[in-house]
Protein backbone atom coordinates (compact mmCIF):
# COMPACT_ATOMS: atom_id res chain seq x y z
CA UNK A 1 0.00 0.00 0.00
CA UNK A 2 2.66 2.50 1.04
CA UNK A 3 6.05 2.18 -0.57
CA UNK A 4 9.16 4.16 0.06
CA UNK A 5 11.93 3.67 -2.43
CA UNK A 6 15.37 5.12 -1.91
CA UNK A 7 13.83 8.04 -0.10
CA UNK A 8 16.33 10.69 0.88
CA UNK A 9 15.94 13.95 2.67
CA UNK A 10 18.67 16.54 2.91
CA UNK A 11 18.23 19.64 4.99
CA UNK A 12 20.15 22.78 4.46
CA UNK A 13 21.44 23.90 7.78
CA UNK A 14 24.04 26.16 9.21
CA UNK A 15 24.79 29.68 8.23
CA UNK A 16 22.17 30.45 5.67
CA UNK A 17 21.78 26.94 4.45
CA UNK A 18 25.42 26.60 3.66
CA UNK A 19 25.67 23.07 4.89
CA UNK A 20 23.78 19.89 4.24
CA UNK A 21 22.35 17.56 6.77
CA UNK A 22 21.37 14.16 5.49
CA UNK A 23 18.42 13.34 7.70
CA UNK A 24 17.21 10.37 5.71
CA UNK A 25 19.27 8.41 3.26
CA UNK A 26 18.10 5.87 0.75
CA UNK A 27 15.35 4.39 2.85
CA UNK A 28 13.29 1.54 1.43
CA UNK A 29 10.27 0.33 3.23
CA UNK A 30 6.74 -0.75 2.65
CA UNK A 31 3.59 -0.87 4.71
CA UNK A 32 0.83 -3.26 3.77
CA UNK A 33 -2.79 -2.97 4.82
CA UNK A 34 -3.28 -4.32 8.32
CA UNK A 35 0.42 -4.11 9.00
CA UNK A 36 2.15 -2.12 11.70
CA UNK A 37 5.65 -1.09 10.75
CA UNK A 38 7.71 0.30 13.60
CA UNK A 39 10.35 2.81 12.83
CA UNK A 40 12.83 2.64 15.66
CA UNK A 41 15.91 4.70 16.26
CA UNK A 42 17.73 7.15 18.41
CA UNK A 43 16.90 10.75 18.53
CA UNK A 44 17.81 12.41 15.29
CA UNK A 45 17.87 9.25 13.27
CA UNK A 46 15.29 10.60 10.85
CA UNK A 47 12.13 8.89 12.01
CA UNK A 48 9.91 11.95 12.11
CA UNK A 49 11.32 13.13 8.85
CA UNK A 50 10.13 9.98 7.16
CA UNK A 51 6.75 10.35 8.77
CA UNK A 52 6.43 13.90 7.57
CA UNK A 53 7.42 12.98 4.06
CA UNK A 54 4.74 10.36 3.99
CA UNK A 55 2.29 12.97 5.19
CA UNK A 56 3.53 15.37 2.52
CA UNK A 57 4.43 17.94 5.11
CA UNK A 58 7.88 18.00 3.65
CA UNK A 59 9.09 16.90 0.27
CA UNK A 60 11.72 14.19 -0.20
CA UNK A 61 14.96 15.35 -1.76
CA UNK A 62 15.19 12.14 -3.75
CA UNK A 63 13.46 8.83 -4.11
CA UNK A 64 9.82 8.05 -4.48
CA UNK A 65 6.95 7.50 -2.10
CA UNK A 66 3.98 5.74 -3.58
CA UNK A 67 0.65 5.25 -1.97
CA UNK A 68 -1.66 2.68 -3.48
CA UNK A 69 0.41 2.77 -6.59
CA UNK A 70 0.35 6.50 -7.07
CA UNK A 71 3.37 8.67 -6.66
CA UNK A 72 2.75 10.92 -3.72
CA UNK A 73 4.89 13.67 -5.21
CA UNK A 74 2.46 13.81 -8.10
CA UNK A 75 -0.34 14.80 -5.77
CA UNK A 76 -0.67 18.46 -6.57
CA UNK A 77 -3.20 21.11 -5.92
CA UNK A 78 -5.61 21.63 -3.12
CA UNK A 79 -8.18 19.04 -4.23
CA UNK A 80 -5.75 16.26 -4.79
CA UNK A 81 -4.04 16.99 -1.54
CA UNK A 82 -7.33 16.80 0.27
CA UNK A 83 -8.07 13.49 -1.35
CA UNK A 84 -4.72 12.19 -0.24
CA UNK A 85 -5.36 13.27 3.31
CA UNK A 86 -8.69 11.52 3.17
CA UNK A 87 -6.68 8.31 2.97
CA UNK A 88 -3.52 9.07 4.87
CA UNK A 89 -3.48 10.71 8.23
CA UNK A 90 -1.09 11.28 11.04
CA UNK A 91 -0.97 11.62 14.80
CA UNK A 92 1.96 13.33 16.44
CA UNK A 93 4.10 12.97 19.43
CA UNK A 94 2.96 15.86 21.57
CA UNK A 95 -0.80 15.84 21.93
CA UNK A 96 -0.75 19.18 23.70
CA UNK A 97 0.92 20.92 20.83
CA UNK A 98 -1.45 19.34 18.32
CA UNK A 99 -4.35 21.29 19.66
CA UNK A 100 -4.70 24.95 19.12
CA UNK A 101 -4.80 26.12 22.72
CA UNK A 102 -7.20 28.95 22.05
CA UNK A 103 -9.97 26.71 20.75
CA UNK A 104 -11.87 23.81 22.23
CA UNK A 105 -10.39 20.43 21.57
CA UNK A 106 -13.23 19.23 19.39
CA UNK A 107 -12.33 21.88 16.86
CA UNK A 108 -10.14 19.22 15.26
CA UNK A 109 -13.37 17.54 14.25
CA UNK A 110 -14.81 20.81 13.07
CA UNK A 111 -11.90 21.26 10.72
CA UNK A 112 -12.51 17.89 9.17
CA UNK A 113 -16.15 18.66 8.76
CA UNK A 114 -15.46 22.04 7.21
CA UNK A 115 -13.12 20.56 4.67
CA UNK A 116 -14.56 17.13 3.99
CA UNK A 117 -18.10 16.82 5.15
CA UNK A 118 -19.62 20.13 4.47
CA UNK A 119 -22.87 18.58 3.39
CA UNK A 120 -23.35 16.31 6.38
CA UNK A 121 -26.24 17.32 8.58
CA UNK A 122 -25.49 18.28 12.14
CA UNK A 123 -27.11 15.16 13.49
CA UNK A 124 -25.42 12.85 11.05
CA UNK A 125 -22.12 14.46 11.81
CA UNK A 126 -22.67 14.16 15.48
CA UNK A 127 -23.38 10.51 15.11
CA UNK A 128 -20.23 10.06 13.12
CA UNK A 129 -18.15 11.82 15.70
CA UNK A 130 -19.68 9.80 18.47
CA UNK A 131 -18.95 6.65 16.62
CA UNK A 132 -15.36 7.65 16.16
CA UNK A 133 -15.12 8.56 19.83
CA UNK A 134 -16.58 5.23 20.73
CA UNK A 135 -13.92 3.53 18.67
CA UNK A 136 -11.21 5.24 20.70
CA UNK A 137 -13.21 4.61 23.85
CA UNK A 138 -13.87 8.19 24.80
CA UNK A 139 -17.01 9.48 26.39
CA UNK A 140 -18.28 12.35 24.25
CA UNK A 141 -19.64 14.11 27.30
CA UNK A 142 -16.18 14.15 28.81
CA UNK A 143 -14.33 15.61 25.89
CA UNK A 144 -16.64 17.68 23.75
CA UNK A 145 -16.51 21.41 24.39
CA UNK A 146 -13.46 21.16 26.58
CA UNK A 147 -10.26 23.08 26.08
CA UNK A 148 -7.14 21.05 25.42
CA UNK A 149 -5.67 21.93 28.79
CA UNK A 150 -8.69 20.46 30.48
CA UNK A 151 -8.00 17.05 29.02
CA UNK A 152 -5.31 14.54 29.70
CA UNK A 153 -2.63 13.66 27.24
CA UNK A 154 -4.18 10.28 26.68
CA UNK A 155 -7.57 11.76 25.98
CA UNK A 156 -6.07 14.24 23.56
CA UNK A 157 -4.09 11.57 21.82
CA UNK A 158 -7.23 9.52 21.41
CA UNK A 159 -9.13 12.51 20.14
CA UNK A 160 -6.52 12.83 17.46
CA UNK A 161 -6.92 9.25 16.46
CA UNK A 162 -10.67 9.65 16.44
CA UNK A 163 -10.19 12.63 14.21
CA UNK A 164 -8.28 10.50 11.74
CA UNK A 165 -11.02 7.91 11.86
CA UNK A 166 -13.58 10.42 10.67
CA UNK A 167 -11.92 10.16 7.32
CA UNK A 168 -11.81 7.14 5.23
CA UNK A 169 -8.21 6.43 6.16
CA UNK A 170 -6.11 3.54 5.02
CA UNK A 171 -2.88 4.58 6.47
CA UNK A 172 -1.94 6.16 9.77
CA UNK A 173 1.40 7.68 10.62
CA UNK A 174 1.78 7.58 14.39
CA UNK A 175 4.82 9.60 15.38
CA UNK A 176 5.92 8.84 18.93
CA UNK A 177 2.34 9.04 19.97
CA UNK A 178 2.93 7.48 23.32
CA UNK A 179 6.18 8.80 24.57
CA UNK A 180 4.49 11.66 26.40
CA UNK A 181 1.98 9.49 28.10
CA UNK A 182 1.83 7.81 31.43
CA UNK A 183 2.58 4.17 31.58
CA UNK A 184 -1.03 3.23 32.12
CA UNK A 185 -2.48 5.48 29.44
CA UNK A 186 0.23 4.42 27.11
CA UNK A 187 -0.91 0.87 27.00
CA UNK A 188 -4.44 1.95 26.26
CA UNK A 189 -3.34 3.88 23.22
CA UNK A 190 -1.20 1.03 22.05
CA UNK A 191 -4.11 -1.32 22.36
CA UNK A 192 -6.18 1.07 20.31
CA UNK A 193 -3.62 0.99 17.52
CA UNK A 194 -3.79 -2.75 17.65
CA UNK A 195 -7.52 -2.59 17.15
CA UNK A 196 -7.14 -0.29 14.17
CA UNK A 197 -4.67 -2.61 12.62
CA UNK A 198 -7.20 -5.31 12.96
CA UNK A 199 -9.54 -3.17 10.91
CA UNK A 200 -7.09 -3.27 8.04
CA UNK A 201 -5.27 -0.02 8.47
CA UNK A 202 -1.64 0.25 7.63
CA UNK A 203 0.26 1.92 10.44
CA UNK A 204 3.66 3.48 10.39
CA UNK A 205 4.55 3.48 14.06
CA UNK A 206 7.42 5.73 14.94
CA UNK A 207 9.14 5.28 18.29
CA UNK A 208 12.44 5.27 20.04
CA UNK A 209 11.18 2.95 22.71
CA UNK A 210 11.96 -0.51 21.55
CA UNK A 211 9.73 -2.28 24.01
CA UNK A 212 6.76 -0.44 22.60
CA UNK A 213 7.77 -1.06 19.05
CA UNK A 214 7.82 -4.66 19.88
CA UNK A 215 4.38 -4.71 21.48
CA UNK A 216 2.24 -4.14 18.42
CA UNK A 217 4.37 -4.06 15.34
CA UNK A 218 4.68 -6.68 12.66
CA UNK A 219 7.76 -5.32 11.06
CA UNK A 220 10.54 -3.43 12.76
CA UNK A 221 12.79 -1.04 10.95
CA UNK A 222 15.84 0.15 12.80
CA UNK A 223 17.12 3.49 11.68
CA UNK A 224 20.50 4.89 12.36
CA UNK A 225 21.56 8.27 11.08
CA UNK A 226 18.95 8.23 8.40
CA UNK A 227 19.79 4.76 7.15
CA UNK A 228 18.00 1.51 7.63
CA UNK A 229 20.43 -0.76 9.43
CA UNK A 230 18.07 -3.57 10.08
CA UNK A 231 14.63 -4.45 8.94
CA UNK A 232 12.59 -7.53 9.46
CA UNK A 233 9.70 -9.20 11.21
CA UNK A 234 9.55 -7.79 14.69
CA UNK A 235 9.88 -11.05 16.48
CA UNK A 236 13.01 -11.97 14.55
CA UNK A 237 14.66 -8.61 14.94
CA UNK A 238 14.04 -8.58 18.67
CA UNK A 239 14.85 -12.14 19.31
CA UNK A 240 17.94 -12.23 17.15
CA UNK A 241 19.14 -8.76 16.37
CA UNK A 242 21.62 -9.03 13.59
CA UNK A 243 23.25 -5.66 13.48
CA UNK A 244 25.58 -4.75 16.33
CA UNK A 245 23.85 -1.42 16.62
CA UNK A 246 20.51 -3.08 17.17
CA UNK A 247 22.01 -5.28 19.77
CA UNK A 248 23.55 -2.41 21.64
CA UNK A 249 20.34 -0.49 21.46
CA UNK A 250 18.41 -3.39 22.84
CA UNK A 251 20.77 -3.84 25.71
CA UNK A 252 20.25 -0.23 26.76
CA UNK A 253 16.52 -0.58 27.00
CA UNK A 254 15.59 -0.61 30.65
CA UNK A 255 13.54 -3.69 31.34
CA UNK A 256 11.65 -4.63 34.38
CA UNK A 257 13.06 -8.05 34.83
CA UNK A 258 16.48 -7.62 33.40
CA UNK A 259 19.02 -5.23 34.75
CA UNK A 260 21.47 -3.51 32.53
CA UNK A 261 24.24 -5.63 33.91
CA UNK A 262 22.35 -8.73 32.97
CA UNK A 263 21.69 -7.35 29.52
CA UNK A 264 25.35 -6.52 29.12
CA UNK A 265 26.31 -9.90 30.27
CA UNK A 266 23.96 -11.43 27.75
CA UNK A 267 25.43 -9.25 25.06
CA UNK A 268 28.93 -10.30 26.00
CA UNK A 269 27.88 -13.87 26.15
CA UNK A 270 26.64 -13.63 22.61
CA UNK A 271 30.10 -12.40 21.66
CA UNK A 272 30.97 -9.22 19.88
CA UNK A 273 29.57 -10.52 16.69
CA UNK A 274 30.11 -8.61 13.57
CA UNK A 275 27.24 -7.73 11.37
CA UNK A 276 26.13 -10.93 9.69
CA UNK A 277 25.53 -8.94 6.54
CA UNK A 278 29.24 -8.51 6.09
CA UNK A 279 29.74 -12.20 6.03
CA UNK A 280 27.02 -12.53 3.46
CA UNK A 281 28.84 -10.74 0.81
CA UNK A 282 29.12 -7.16 1.92
CA UNK A 283 32.26 -5.20 2.69
CA UNK A 284 32.32 -4.62 6.41
CA UNK A 285 31.13 -1.16 7.15
CA UNK A 286 30.09 -0.50 3.64
CA UNK A 287 27.36 -2.69 2.42
CA UNK A 288 23.82 -1.89 1.73
CA UNK A 289 20.92 -4.05 2.90
CA UNK A 290 21.63 -7.68 2.74
CA UNK A 291 18.90 -10.23 3.21
CA UNK A 292 19.62 -12.62 6.06
CA UNK A 293 16.37 -14.45 6.17
CA UNK A 294 13.22 -13.84 4.16
CA UNK A 295 12.27 -10.26 4.86
CA UNK A 296 15.07 -9.74 7.35
CA UNK A 297 17.64 -7.33 6.02
CA UNK A 298 20.67 -5.84 7.58
CA UNK A 299 22.83 -3.03 6.30
CA UNK A 300 25.96 -1.45 7.56
CA UNK A 301 27.56 1.76 6.63
CA UNK A 302 30.72 3.62 7.35
CA UNK A 303 30.63 5.86 10.33
CA UNK A 304 30.80 9.15 8.68
CA UNK A 305 28.20 8.87 5.99
Amino acid sequence: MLDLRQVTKTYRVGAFGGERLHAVRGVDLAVAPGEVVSLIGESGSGKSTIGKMVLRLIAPSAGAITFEGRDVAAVRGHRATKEYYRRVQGVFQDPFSCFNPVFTADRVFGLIRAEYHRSASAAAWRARVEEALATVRLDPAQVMGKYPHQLSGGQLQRLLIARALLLDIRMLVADEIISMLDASTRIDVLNLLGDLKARGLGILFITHDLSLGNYISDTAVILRRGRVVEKGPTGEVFAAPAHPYTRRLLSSVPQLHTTWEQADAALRAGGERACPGCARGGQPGAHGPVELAPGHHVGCFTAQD
Partner: protein
Amino acid sequence: MSEMEPDVRAVQAAEGLPAQAGPPERRLGESLHFALRNPKLLIGGGVVGALLLTGLVAPLFVQEGPNVYVGPQAQAPSAQYWLGTTNFGQDVFAQFVFGLRSTFLVGLVGGGIAAVVGMVVGFTAGYRGGLVDEVLNMITNVVLVLPALVVLIIAAAYLQARGIALQGLFIGLTSWPWVARAVRAQTLSLATRDFVDLARLSGRRAHSIVFREIAPNMSSYLFMTFILLFGGAILIAAGLDFIGLGPTEGVSLGLMMHNAVTWGALQLGMWWWFVPPGLGITAIVGSLYIMNVGLDEVFNPKLREL
Protein backbone atom coordinates in the same frame (compact mmCIF):
# COMPACT_ATOMS: atom_id res chain seq x y z
CA MET B 1 8.27 61.03 18.02
CA SER B 2 9.78 58.00 17.51
CA GLU B 3 9.27 56.90 20.96
CA MET B 4 8.35 53.47 20.03
CA GLU B 5 10.91 52.12 22.34
CA PRO B 6 8.56 50.21 24.55
CA ASP B 7 7.16 48.47 21.55
CA VAL B 8 10.38 46.88 20.90
CA ARG B 9 10.43 45.77 24.43
CA ALA B 10 7.23 43.94 24.03
CA VAL B 11 8.49 42.36 20.88
CA GLN B 12 11.55 41.18 22.56
CA ALA B 13 9.66 39.97 25.48
CA ALA B 14 7.45 38.04 23.19
CA GLU B 15 10.34 36.65 21.26
CA GLY B 16 11.73 35.22 24.40
CA LEU B 17 8.49 33.53 25.16
CA PRO B 18 6.49 30.72 23.85
CA ALA B 19 3.86 32.45 21.84
CA GLN B 20 1.17 31.64 24.27
CA ALA B 21 2.56 31.62 27.69
CA GLY B 22 2.04 28.37 29.38
CA PRO B 23 -0.89 26.04 29.07
CA PRO B 24 -3.81 28.38 29.21
CA GLU B 25 -5.77 27.67 32.31
CA ARG B 26 -9.32 28.77 31.92
CA ARG B 27 -8.05 31.56 29.84
CA LEU B 28 -10.91 33.94 29.40
CA GLY B 29 -12.30 33.88 32.85
CA GLU B 30 -8.91 33.91 34.38
CA SER B 31 -7.67 36.74 32.19
CA LEU B 32 -10.68 38.73 33.16
CA HIS B 33 -10.08 37.97 36.78
CA PHE B 34 -6.55 39.26 36.57
CA ALA B 35 -7.54 42.13 34.34
CA LEU B 36 -9.91 43.39 36.95
CA ARG B 37 -7.26 43.16 39.59
CA ASN B 38 -4.37 44.61 37.68
CA PRO B 39 -3.85 48.18 38.80
CA LYS B 40 -1.69 49.00 35.81
CA LEU B 41 -4.32 47.90 33.38
CA LEU B 42 -7.07 49.57 35.32
CA ILE B 43 -5.33 52.89 35.74
CA GLY B 44 -3.96 52.97 32.22
CA GLY B 45 -7.21 51.85 30.68
CA GLY B 46 -9.13 54.23 32.88
CA VAL B 47 -7.15 57.27 31.82
CA VAL B 48 -7.23 56.35 28.16
CA GLY B 49 -10.92 55.58 28.37
CA ALA B 50 -11.70 58.82 30.12
CA LEU B 51 -9.77 60.84 27.58
CA LEU B 52 -11.32 58.95 24.71
CA LEU B 53 -14.73 59.56 26.10
CA THR B 54 -13.94 63.23 26.51
CA GLY B 55 -12.74 63.35 22.94
CA LEU B 56 -15.86 61.63 21.71
CA VAL B 57 -18.46 63.30 23.80
CA ALA B 58 -17.24 66.72 24.79
CA PRO B 59 -17.07 68.12 21.24
CA LEU B 60 -20.79 67.54 20.99
CA PHE B 61 -21.28 70.07 23.72
CA VAL B 62 -18.96 72.65 22.26
CA GLN B 63 -21.16 74.96 20.32
CA GLU B 64 -18.68 76.45 17.96
CA GLY B 65 -15.78 74.91 16.12
CA PRO B 66 -12.45 74.74 17.84
CA ASN B 67 -10.94 77.48 15.72
CA VAL B 68 -13.67 80.01 16.11
CA TYR B 69 -12.87 83.18 17.99
CA VAL B 70 -15.32 83.00 20.78
CA GLY B 71 -13.98 85.08 23.58
CA PRO B 72 -11.51 87.58 24.83
CA GLN B 73 -7.93 87.02 23.85
CA ALA B 74 -5.37 85.28 26.02
CA GLN B 75 -7.64 84.69 28.98
CA ALA B 76 -6.52 82.55 31.84
CA PRO B 77 -8.74 79.60 32.71
CA SER B 78 -12.04 80.70 34.12
CA ALA B 79 -15.46 79.29 34.77
CA GLN B 80 -16.52 80.17 31.27
CA TYR B 81 -13.37 79.06 29.50
CA TRP B 82 -12.18 76.11 31.46
CA LEU B 83 -8.79 76.11 29.91
CA GLY B 84 -8.67 79.75 29.03
CA THR B 85 -8.40 81.15 25.55
CA THR B 86 -5.69 81.50 22.95
CA ASN B 87 -4.07 84.64 21.68
CA PHE B 88 -6.93 85.03 19.26
CA GLY B 89 -9.71 84.24 21.64
CA GLN B 90 -10.25 80.61 20.74
CA ASP B 91 -11.46 78.40 23.52
CA VAL B 92 -8.55 76.18 24.54
CA PHE B 93 -10.89 73.62 26.04
CA ALA B 94 -12.78 73.31 22.78
CA GLN B 95 -9.49 72.89 20.95
CA PHE B 96 -8.36 70.37 23.49
CA VAL B 97 -11.38 68.13 23.17
CA PHE B 98 -11.40 68.31 19.40
CA GLY B 99 -7.67 67.77 19.50
CA LEU B 100 -8.15 64.68 21.62
CA ARG B 101 -10.46 63.37 18.98
CA SER B 102 -7.97 63.85 16.17
CA THR B 103 -5.19 62.54 18.28
CA PHE B 104 -7.10 59.35 18.85
CA LEU B 105 -7.93 59.25 15.19
CA VAL B 106 -4.29 59.52 14.20
CA GLY B 107 -3.45 56.80 16.66
CA LEU B 108 -6.19 54.59 15.34
CA VAL B 109 -5.44 55.09 11.68
CA GLY B 110 -1.67 55.13 12.06
CA GLY B 111 -1.58 52.29 14.53
CA GLY B 112 -4.18 50.34 12.60
CA ILE B 113 -2.43 50.60 9.29
CA ALA B 114 0.96 49.86 10.75
CA ALA B 115 -0.51 46.86 12.54
CA VAL B 116 -2.17 45.55 9.40
CA VAL B 117 0.86 46.04 7.18
CA GLY B 118 3.22 44.72 9.80
CA MET B 119 1.09 41.68 10.41
CA VAL B 120 0.53 40.87 6.78
CA VAL B 121 4.23 41.17 6.07
CA GLY B 122 5.19 39.33 9.22
CA PHE B 123 2.73 36.49 8.73
CA THR B 124 3.60 36.07 5.10
CA ALA B 125 7.33 36.14 5.71
CA GLY B 126 7.10 33.86 8.69
CA TYR B 127 4.76 31.32 7.20
CA ARG B 128 5.94 31.24 3.62
CA GLY B 129 9.62 31.42 4.34
CA GLY B 130 12.16 31.02 1.59
CA LEU B 131 12.47 33.65 -1.05
CA VAL B 132 9.31 35.46 -0.03
CA ASP B 133 10.74 35.75 3.43
CA GLU B 134 14.02 37.10 2.15
CA VAL B 135 12.39 39.72 0.00
CA LEU B 136 10.01 40.85 2.69
CA ASN B 137 12.86 40.95 5.16
CA MET B 138 14.76 43.16 2.84
CA ILE B 139 11.86 45.53 2.49
CA THR B 140 11.41 45.55 6.21
CA ASN B 141 15.04 46.39 6.71
CA VAL B 142 14.89 49.21 4.22
CA VAL B 143 11.89 50.77 5.85
CA LEU B 144 13.47 50.23 9.20
CA VAL B 145 16.60 52.19 8.46
CA LEU B 146 14.85 55.00 6.67
CA PRO B 147 14.29 57.38 9.53
CA ALA B 148 10.54 57.58 9.69
CA LEU B 149 10.40 61.18 10.71
CA VAL B 150 12.49 62.31 7.81
CA VAL B 151 10.44 60.32 5.34
CA LEU B 152 7.35 61.74 6.92
CA ILE B 153 8.64 65.26 6.72
CA ILE B 154 9.16 64.83 3.05
CA ALA B 155 5.91 63.02 2.52
CA ALA B 156 4.07 65.64 4.50
CA ALA B 157 5.47 68.36 2.32
CA TYR B 158 4.48 66.41 -0.74
CA LEU B 159 0.87 66.39 0.23
CA GLN B 160 -0.78 69.62 -0.61
CA ALA B 161 -3.58 69.40 1.83
CA ARG B 162 -3.05 67.22 4.81
CA GLY B 163 -5.87 65.77 6.79
CA ILE B 164 -5.54 63.92 10.01
CA ALA B 165 -6.45 60.62 8.46
CA LEU B 166 -3.87 61.10 5.75
CA GLN B 167 -1.29 61.90 8.33
CA GLY B 168 -2.25 58.70 10.09
CA LEU B 169 -1.94 56.80 6.85
CA PHE B 170 1.58 57.99 6.28
CA ILE B 171 2.59 57.29 9.80
CA GLY B 172 1.14 53.85 9.49
CA LEU B 173 3.05 53.19 6.32
CA THR B 174 6.38 53.97 7.93
CA SER B 175 6.08 52.50 11.36
CA TRP B 176 5.30 48.88 10.69
CA PRO B 177 8.74 47.26 10.34
CA TRP B 178 9.28 46.25 13.92
CA VAL B 179 5.85 44.70 13.98
CA ALA B 180 6.65 42.75 10.88
CA ARG B 181 9.83 41.51 12.47
CA ALA B 182 8.14 40.56 15.67
CA VAL B 183 5.17 38.90 14.03
CA ARG B 184 7.48 37.03 11.74
CA ALA B 185 9.45 35.69 14.67
CA GLN B 186 6.27 34.67 16.41
CA THR B 187 4.87 33.07 13.31
CA LEU B 188 8.07 31.14 12.75
CA SER B 189 7.85 29.65 16.18
CA LEU B 190 4.14 28.96 15.98
CA ALA B 191 4.41 27.46 12.53
CA THR B 192 6.51 24.67 13.95
CA ARG B 193 3.74 23.68 16.30
CA ASP B 194 2.03 20.47 15.52
CA PHE B 195 -1.42 21.94 15.30
CA VAL B 196 -0.34 23.77 12.20
CA ASP B 197 0.68 20.50 10.62
CA LEU B 198 -2.56 19.04 11.75
CA ALA B 199 -4.50 21.81 10.10
CA ARG B 200 -2.64 21.10 6.92
CA LEU B 201 -3.51 17.44 7.28
CA SER B 202 -7.11 18.62 7.52
CA GLY B 203 -6.81 20.18 4.10
CA ARG B 204 -6.66 23.79 5.19
CA ARG B 205 -5.26 26.39 2.87
CA ALA B 206 -2.26 28.47 3.80
CA HIS B 207 -4.08 31.71 4.38
CA SER B 208 -6.68 30.20 6.60
CA ILE B 209 -3.98 28.44 8.56
CA VAL B 210 -2.31 31.77 9.14
CA PHE B 211 -5.41 33.68 10.04
CA ARG B 212 -7.49 31.02 11.69
CA GLU B 213 -4.88 28.95 13.43
CA ILE B 214 -1.78 31.01 13.99
CA ALA B 215 -3.14 34.49 14.44
CA PRO B 216 -5.65 33.62 17.17
CA ASN B 217 -2.77 32.28 19.19
CA MET B 218 -1.10 35.64 19.08
CA SER B 219 -4.21 37.65 19.59
CA SER B 220 -3.22 39.11 22.91
CA TYR B 221 0.17 39.85 21.56
CA LEU B 222 -1.21 41.44 18.43
CA PHE B 223 -3.49 43.53 20.52
CA MET B 224 -0.60 44.73 22.61
CA THR B 225 1.33 45.51 19.48
CA PHE B 226 -1.52 47.59 18.24
CA ILE B 227 -1.64 49.54 21.46
CA LEU B 228 2.02 50.34 21.21
CA LEU B 229 1.65 51.36 17.60
CA PHE B 230 -1.26 53.49 18.59
CA GLY B 231 0.82 55.38 21.12
CA GLY B 232 3.76 55.58 18.76
CA ALA B 233 1.62 57.03 15.99
CA ILE B 234 0.34 59.71 18.33
CA LEU B 235 3.85 60.70 19.25
CA ILE B 236 5.01 60.76 15.66
CA ALA B 237 2.06 62.86 14.70
CA ALA B 238 2.81 65.25 17.52
CA GLY B 239 6.36 65.58 16.25
CA LEU B 240 5.18 66.34 12.75
CA ASP B 241 2.63 68.82 14.00
CA PHE B 242 5.26 70.46 16.06
CA ILE B 243 7.51 71.27 13.18
CA GLY B 244 4.59 72.61 11.26
CA LEU B 245 3.91 69.60 9.12
CA GLY B 246 0.72 68.67 10.84
CA PRO B 247 -2.71 68.61 9.32
CA THR B 248 -3.56 71.74 7.44
CA GLU B 249 -7.10 71.53 8.62
CA GLY B 250 -8.66 70.86 11.97
CA VAL B 251 -6.94 70.69 15.29
CA SER B 252 -4.87 68.12 17.00
CA LEU B 253 -3.03 68.20 20.25
CA GLY B 254 0.27 68.46 18.42
CA LEU B 255 -1.00 71.35 16.38
CA MET B 256 -2.16 73.10 19.52
CA MET B 257 1.25 72.70 20.97
CA HIS B 258 2.76 74.02 17.77
CA ASN B 259 0.47 77.00 17.77
CA ALA B 260 1.05 77.72 21.40
CA VAL B 261 4.77 77.73 20.82
CA THR B 262 4.74 79.78 17.64
CA TRP B 263 2.39 82.27 19.17
CA GLY B 264 4.58 82.79 22.14
CA ALA B 265 2.38 81.16 24.73
CA LEU B 266 5.35 80.47 26.94
CA GLN B 267 6.75 83.91 26.58
CA LEU B 268 3.41 85.34 27.57
CA GLY B 269 2.98 82.94 30.43
CA MET B 270 -0.02 81.31 28.81
CA TRP B 271 0.68 77.93 30.30
CA TRP B 272 -2.95 76.92 29.81
CA TRP B 273 -2.37 76.92 26.11
CA PHE B 274 0.89 75.05 26.09
CA VAL B 275 0.54 72.58 28.92
CA PRO B 276 -2.77 70.80 28.22
CA PRO B 277 -1.92 69.45 24.77
CA GLY B 278 1.45 68.12 25.85
CA LEU B 279 -0.01 66.71 28.99
CA GLY B 280 -2.84 65.19 26.99
CA ILE B 281 -0.45 63.42 24.68
CA THR B 282 1.73 62.25 27.51
CA ALA B 283 -1.30 61.04 29.41
CA ILE B 284 -2.71 59.11 26.48
CA VAL B 285 0.53 57.54 25.42
CA GLY B 286 1.79 56.94 28.91
CA SER B 287 -1.44 55.31 29.93
CA LEU B 288 -1.38 53.18 26.83
CA TYR B 289 2.06 51.96 27.74
CA ILE B 290 1.11 51.30 31.31
CA MET B 291 -1.97 49.50 30.12
CA ASN B 292 0.20 47.42 27.90
CA VAL B 293 2.38 46.22 30.72
CA GLY B 294 -0.80 45.47 32.61
CA LEU B 295 -2.09 43.43 29.71
CA ASP B 296 1.16 41.60 29.52
CA GLU B 297 0.79 40.64 33.13
CA VAL B 298 -2.76 39.55 32.57
CA PHE B 299 -2.06 37.44 29.55
CA ASN B 300 1.14 36.00 30.78
CA PRO B 301 0.76 33.85 33.88
CA LYS B 302 4.48 33.99 34.53
CA LEU B 303 4.29 37.69 35.22
CA ARG B 304 1.32 37.54 37.46
CA GLU B 305 1.92 38.26 41.04
CA LEU B 306 -0.21 36.58 43.57
